[in-house]
């Protein structure tokens, strides 16, 4: 059995926070184990931060739409926005930040794509009809009531 949920919000940092919090509560109520919910929350937050900071940069913040599909063994989360496409239509590689440097040269950002790629088992991207569609997959073992029930 597949369970789905959805939410949408305006691409600002504060609206993103409440939207992400509602997704997290949904995942907990569907029986996704706590540590996995944490990992999904990290990757989802980084993806949404990118929409707020880059896709709608220089324009009025548009909508972010999130859909979730919970299968017995995996969770797909898709994030859609109508902002600017990724450069050359390609997702960033997400290399780990170099921390073996003097303190004053330590990175203060650029961790987002690394975290997404580290935590999601699959990442897919499509640009269709002026929308960015990013889908993240997570392997999940649902606890509590059986997903087949």
């Amino acid at each position, binding site marked *: 059995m597949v369970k789905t949920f959805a939410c949408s919000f305006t691409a600002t940092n504060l609206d*993103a926070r409440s939207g992400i919090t509602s997704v997290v509560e949904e995942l907990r109520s569907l029986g996704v184990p706590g*540590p996995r919910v944490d990992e999904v*929350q990290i990757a989802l*937050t980084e993806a949404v931060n990118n929409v707020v900071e880059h896709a709608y940069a220089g324009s009025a913040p548009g909508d972010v739409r999130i859909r979730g599909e919970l299968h017995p063994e995996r969770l797909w989360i898709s994030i859609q926005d109508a902002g600017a496409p990724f450069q050359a239509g390609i997702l960033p590689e997400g290399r780990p930040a170099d*921390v073996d440097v003097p303190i004053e040269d330590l990175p203060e950002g*650029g*961790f987002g794509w690394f*975290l997404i790629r580290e*935590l999601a088992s699959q990442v897919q991207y499509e640009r269709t009809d002026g929308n960015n569609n990013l889908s993240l997959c997570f392997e999940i073992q649902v606890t509590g009531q059986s997903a087949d029930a």
Partner: protein
Amino acid sequence: MSLTTTMTDGAQIVKVNAERIDAAMAIQFKEDMRTETESGPDRVILDLSEVQFIDSSGLGAIVAAMKQLGSGRKLDLAGLTPMVEKVFRLTRMDTIFDLYASLSDATAPADANS
């Protein structure tokens, strides 16, 4: 954003009274840390025990807070919840800071025999 400061022997303890250090508050956190730590002991301990969630913006803000202390001063982190610890470990920032499981671990004498 609310930070609470306590002075102990040789260290300033700054407690973060927030559940999240995310993109909505990272800049404020960095500025508040600058104000709180403008002067004071060389060692600052950041008590993160209330923080349930941090993202890369929050992580960057903690790195910035360490850098703005300047040379000769040190930022240690205490009371990391499992989620916060995971973000530090994944990004290898756990190798940059001294991490303590709790505030009492962070303030315990370094050498019990001395």
